[in-house]
C-alpha cells in the first residue's frame, strides 16, 4: 500500500526550476493536496532544496587515503595519513590493547557516561600528560573532560575560548595540522599564525617565532605542538622551550598544547611531555588536547582528553562544568569503549609497562625507517641534503618536496602523501623504502 501511494505522489511532483542553476526555488506541492490521481509522466526531475550546494573539497589528509584505496595498482605506497604500520605495512593493534579488550568484554554495562566522560580515564590521562606527581593534579586544579580524540579535545577548547574569551585570537605555527584551522574557524575564533618552520634549514625558525610571539597582542591564545610537530617533525630544543615559556609569561599568552604523539617522539612518554613540564614549572596555566589515537593505536575509538590547568579547585570545577555544557548539545556524552581500554591499560602496572614497551618499539621502528630512507637517498647519489629526514622527530618527515613533485610521485609511482610533501614515516617499510628513495630521487634530480 505504501509503494502505490508513493508512486502516486512521486508522479505528481512538480518541477520548478532546476537545482543545478543554483536558484533556490521553492517547489510547489500544491498538486499533492488536490487528491486527484492525475499523473505527470515523462522525466520530471524532482526539485531539491540542495541544488545550490556545491561539491565539497576533499580533505587534504583523509582524501589521500581515499585516493590510495581507489588505486588498483600493485606496489602502491601510502605515506599519507599518520596511522602506524608495521614492517609489513599492516595496521597494528597493540598487544596491551588486545589484552585490555579481552578483560573488559562481556563485563561492563554500556550506560551513558557523564558529560565529562569517564572520571577514572580522565584522572589517568592527566597523570600521563602532567606527571604522576604533578602539583597541579595534587591540588585538584585541573579540569579534565574526556573528548573525541584530539580533534574533539581541540573543538571543545575552541568553543570554550569563543564562549568565554570572545575577544581573543588563536595563533598557529606555520605550518600546522590542517584541521586546526577548520576547528577554530567553525568555533568562530579569529585565526592567526606565527612563523615556525624554516624551509631553508628544514628546521625551526626560532627568531621568527619569538618575534611573532612578541608582536602578538598580550593575552592571545597559542596552539603549540607538545612534541613531534605535525607536519614538520621540527621541535624546539629544551633550551628553546624554556625561552618560549619565559616570553609567554611576559606576554600573558595562553597556551593550548596539542599532544597527539606522546611517546612517539623520543620513545619515552616522560621525555615527550617536557614542554608541558617546563611551562608548568614556570607557573603557566596551560590547556592540553590529548589523543590516544596513535600512541595506543586506538584511532577509530576516538579517545582523548581536554584538560585545563586552573587557578584553583573551584575554578577547575567551574571550567569543567562549562566544558560539559559545550559537549551536551554536540554529542551529550562521550563514547565508552575507548575510555575503558585506556583506563584498563593505564591503571594496571603490567599492562602499562607492556604499553610503554610497545610505544617505544613503534618509535624505534620509525627512527630506523628514517635512517634507511636517508641512507638510500644518499647511497643512490642524490645531491640534495637529506639530513632533515633523521633530524625531524616523530611520525612525519617534511620532505621539502613541492606539490608538483608530489603529484608526479602519485601519478608515476603510485606513492601517496599529502601535497605539502609530508611523508608519514610510519608507512615506510624495509620492503618499500628503496622504491620510495628511488622515486623521490627521480622526481628531485633536477633540483639542487
Amino acid at each position: 500500500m505504501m509503494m502505490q501511494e508513493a508512486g502516486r505522489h512521486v508522479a505528481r511532483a512538480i518541477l520548478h526550476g532546476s537545482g543545478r542553476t543554483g536558484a533556490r526555488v521553492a517547489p510547489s506541492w500544491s498538486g499533492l493536496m488536490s487528491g486527484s490521481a492525475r499523473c505527470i509522466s515523462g522525466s520530471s526531475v524532482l526539485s531539491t532544496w540542495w541544488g545550490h550546494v556545491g561539491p565539497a573539497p576533499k580533505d587534504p589528509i583523509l582524501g589521500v587515503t581515499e585516493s590510495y584505496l581507489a588505486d588498483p595498482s600493485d606496489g602502491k605506497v601510502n605515506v599519507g595519513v599518520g596511522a602506524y604500520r608495521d614492517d609489513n605495512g599492516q595496521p597494528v593493534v597493540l598487544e596491551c590493547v588486545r589484552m585490555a579488550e579481552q578483560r573488559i568484554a562481556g563485563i561492563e554495562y554500556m550506560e551513558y557516561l557523564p558529560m565529562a566522560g569517564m572520571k577514572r580515564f580522565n584522572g589517568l590521562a592527566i597523570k600521563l600528560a602532567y606527571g604522576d606527581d604533578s602539583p597541579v593534579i595534587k591540588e585538584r586544579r585541573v579540569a579534565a573532560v574526556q573528548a573525541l580524540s584530539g580533534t574533539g579535545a581541540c573543538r571543545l577548547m575552541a568553543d570554550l575560548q569563543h564562549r568565554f574569551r570572545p575577544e581573543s585570537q588563536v595563533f598557529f605555527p606555520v605550518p600546522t595540522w590542517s584541521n586546526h584551522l577548520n576547528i577554530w574557524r567553525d568555533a568562530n575564533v579569529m585565526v592567526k599564525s606565527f612563523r615556525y618552520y624554516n624551509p631553508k634549514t628544514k628546521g625551526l625558525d626560532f627568531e621568527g617565532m619569538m618575534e611573532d610571539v612578541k608582536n602578538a597582542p598580550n593575552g592571545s591564545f597559542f596552539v603549540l605542538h607538545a612534541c613531534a610537530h605535525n607536519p614538520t617533525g621540527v621541535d624546539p630544543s629544551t633550551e628553546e622551550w624554556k625561552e618560549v615559556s619565559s616570553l609567554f609569561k611576559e606576554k600573558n599568552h595562553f597556551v593550548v598544547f596539542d599532544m597527539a604523539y606522546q611517546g612517539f617522539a623520543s620513545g619515552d612518554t616522560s621525555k615527550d611531555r617536557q614542554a608541558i613540564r617546563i611551562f608548568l614549572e614556570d607557573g603557566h596555566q596551560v590547556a592540553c588536547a590529548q589523543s590516544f589515537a596513535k600512541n595506543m593505536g586506538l584511532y577509530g575509538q576516538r579517545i582523548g582528553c581536554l584538560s585545563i590547568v586552573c587557578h584553583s579547585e573551584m575554578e577547575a570545577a567551574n571550567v569543567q562544568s562549562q566544558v560539559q555544557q559545550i559537549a551536551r548539545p554536540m554529542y551529550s556524552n562521550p563514547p565508552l569503549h575507548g575510555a575503558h581500554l585506556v583506563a584498563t591499560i593505564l591503571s594496571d602496572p603490567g599492562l602499562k609497562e607492556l604499553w610503554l614497551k610497545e610505544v617505544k618499539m613503534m618509535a624505534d621502528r620509525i627512527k630506523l625507517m628514517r635512517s634507511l630512507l636517508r641512507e638510500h637517498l644518499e647511497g643512490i647519489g642524490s645531491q640534495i641534503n637529506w639530513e632533515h629526514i633523521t633530524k625531524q622527530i616523530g611520525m612525519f618527515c617534511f620532505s621539502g618536496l613541492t606539490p608538483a613533485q608530489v603529484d608526479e610521485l602519485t601519478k608515476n609511482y603510485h606513492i601517496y602523501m599529502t601535497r605539502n610533501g609530508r611523508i608519514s614515516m610510519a608507512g615506510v617499510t624495509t620492503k618499500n623504502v628503496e622504491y620510495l628513495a628511488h622515486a623521490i630521487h627521480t622526481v628531485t634530480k633536477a633540483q639542487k
Partner: protein
Amino acid sequence: MVLSFLNCTSSQTRHRPLTHSSLSSIHSTGRPLISSAACILPEDKEQKGGGDIAVRTVFFFLPLPTMASAQAMPISVWEKLTEAPEDAILGVTVAYNKDPNPVKLNLGVGAYRTDEGKPLVLEVVRQAEARLVADRSRYKEYLPIVGLAAFNKLSKELAFGADHPAVVANRITTVQGLSGTGSLRVGAEFMGQHYHTPIIYVPVPTWGNHNKIFPKAGLKVQSYRYYDPATRGLNFTGMMEDLKAAPDGAIILLHVCAHNPTGVDPLPEQWDAIRQLIRAKGQFPFFDSAYQGFASGDLDADAYALRSFAADGGELALAQSYAKNMGLYGERVGALSMVCATAAAAKLVEGQLKLVIRPMYSSPPLHGAAIVATVLSEEKLLHDWKAELKGMADRIIEMRHKLYDALLQRGTPGDWTHILKQIGMFTFTGLTKPQVDFMREKYHVYMTGDGRISMAGLSTATVPHLVNAIDDAVRNIA
C-alpha cells in the same frame, strides 16, 4: 561563515598586586607557592554563584608572606566563569546518585532497566562483542569521516526499509553520528549553513536538549502546539493550526514515534494530514528517531510516519539513535540520513556533511557501530534482537498496566488512563513541579521537573512505592 572580529581589549596584565585578605572571601587553595597568598580581587565577590558550602570548606588559609617578598599572583583567563547549571535531565541522575536513601527510585533518564532494576546489555550485543574481540584480524583504524559503511547502509535500511523507493533510488545519504544528539547536531549545522530558512519548529513539549542543539547551529527555535494537558493526548487541531501559520519552508521537528517526553503520538490518519500540510507549505521535516521498536514493539510499524514522508518524493532529515533500542547508550551510536530528491543531490549533501564533521571530531567511534553492523547483518542475530526489543517494549507495557491498576486500586484521585494510552518509554504523568519536588524530598522518587517518568526505570517491586508517592502528592500538594 562570518567570523566575529572583535579588537582585542587593551592589554590587561594578568598579574595584580596582592591585597589584604580575610577568611570570609577565601577562594584559593592557599597553597604554598612562592607567590602564595589568598587575595581578594574586586570582581570575585560577584562571581560566587553556585558551588556548595562543602566545596568551599576544603580551602584553607595560609599566612600571607609580606608584600615585599611575594610575587604577583597570576590571574586566570577563566576567573570570570561561573559554575554551569546541571543539565535538567542528566542532573536528575546526578542528584539520585548523591542520595543515600535505600528506597530511592530513579525514573529520570530514559535508560532501560530490567524488572530487577538493573541495566541491561542485550544478548545479541554481547554475542556481537565477543565475536569482534575474538577476531584478531580486526583493526581499530580511523573510520572514514562518514563512518562505517556497512553500518550506514544497514541503518538506512532499518529506518526506511530495504526496498523503500527512496533507498532503491539511492537518494538517501546516511552518515554515522554520535547517537541521536550527534546526528541532530550535524544535521542542524548542515541546515544552518545551507538551508534557506534557518528556523525550526519544535513540538511543545520536546526533549530538552533539542532547544540547546538547534541554536548552536544558528537555527532559530519556534514551537507548535502538540500536547494537550486537558486530555493528556495530542492537540491535533492546535498542531495543524500552528504548522499552517508557520512560514513556508520552515524546518519542522517531528518525533518518529514514542514522543519524548509525552508518549503521545499522532494516529496514522493524522500523520497523513500532517504530511500533506507540511508538503503543501514546502516545509522541511526533520525527524528524530530514538525509540524505533519501543513504541509498538514492531520496528516497521514504528517507522510508518517516516517512511510515508520519504515515499512522497519530498526531502527530509532523520536523526537515528541506537542508544535505547540496542541498549548501546554509552557507545554513542547513531546515524543522520538526508533524504534528497535526487541521487546527485544526496552526493553533494554527503560531501558537505563531511565538512561539518571533520572539525568537530574528525570521524566517529568504531566500536558501537561495529556491534550494530554485526547484529543487523546476520539473520539470526537480527531475529534475536527483534525478540529482545519486543521483550523490553512488553515489559514497559506491563509496567504501565501495573502502575495503572495499582493507582486504581488505591483510589488515587484523577484520571490515570493516559498511563495506558501513552506510548514508549515515558509517561507524562501530569504531576506538577511542586508535586515532583515533594515526591523527591519525601519519597526519594526522582523524575524530571515536567513530571515525566521513565517506565523503563520502574519494576514490579517498586510500583507500590511509586503509588504511595503519587497518591500522597496528588492528595496533599497542589
